[in-house]
């Protein structure tokens, strides 16, 4: 290599690494995770949701109340084991959105009993969380 060129290169070389583009990228990633993700509490129990072709993406405009029925047919509200007779204390507002998270192996009998209790409180609509099937709707 021509020694004069090497000298020029050495002179022009900036010794510090430019960190600004990396910071820009990290900020962009951070903003992406902040805006698109939802920080949710992990449940103590695992629920395998029932599969349905007609599941629609949820729109939670109102305050939501999630009632969970696990595979052993135990009903949970906010991580507390409750009985169906306790539902009338939980269901106290028509403005709230009541969502059931039920294990697909749980008995439908419990679900129907729960909605009968809810119906006594004049709630007109309830929701059931499902796993949307990949099958195409005919």
């Amino acid at each position, binding site marked *: 290599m021509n020694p004069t060129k090497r000298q020029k290169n050495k002179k022009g070389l900036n010794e510090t690494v430019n*960190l600004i583009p990396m910071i820009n990228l990290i900020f962009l990633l951070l903003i992406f*995770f902040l805006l698109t993700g939802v920080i949710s509490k992990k449940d103590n129990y695992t629920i395998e949701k029932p*599969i349905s072709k007609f599941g629609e*993406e*949820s729109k939670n405009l109102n305050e939501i109340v999630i009632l969970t029925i696990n595979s052993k047919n135990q009903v949970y509200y906010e991580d507390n084991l409750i009985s169906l007779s306790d539902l009338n204390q939980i269901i106290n507002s028509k403005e709230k959105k009541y969502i059931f998270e039920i294990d697909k192996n*749980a008995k439908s009998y419990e*679900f129907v009993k729960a909605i009968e209790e809810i*119906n006594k409180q004049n709630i*007109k609509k309830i929701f059931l969380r499902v796993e949307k099937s990949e099958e195409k709707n005919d």
Partner: protein
Amino acid sequence: MLKPVSQKKSPRINIIPLIDIIFLMLVFFMLATNFSRNNEISFTLSNQKKVVNQLNKEKLMILNLKNDEIIFDDSSINLNDLEMNYLKKWRSLNYERIVILNDKRSSIQSLISLLDLIKKNKIKNVNFSNEPNKTPKK
């Protein structure tokens, strides 16, 4: 005597701690956020005891869910036969409403699969209940 030439150092901000904190935040949000969207199906609750009671029993298609098996007219029927022989010909049949009766052993998945099939065939008059003599719920 010659005085030493003072070397002026330009002030530089150390950005390494900033990068550390941003990285920490990025890792936190990457691990804590949840991107899964929830799918739901909705149920309209209404007291249709009168409607069902007023209908002639012959106008009701009563499907019993017994131990995840569909019983119609005292015989077991699978989902495919039910769709081909009844649900697809719904308009030509004499029925006005489907009533699903659960037993204590049927799973929520079998109820959802049956409701999916009914919805697929665009039948809207559906009620479900636990016991034959109790109010069916839509």
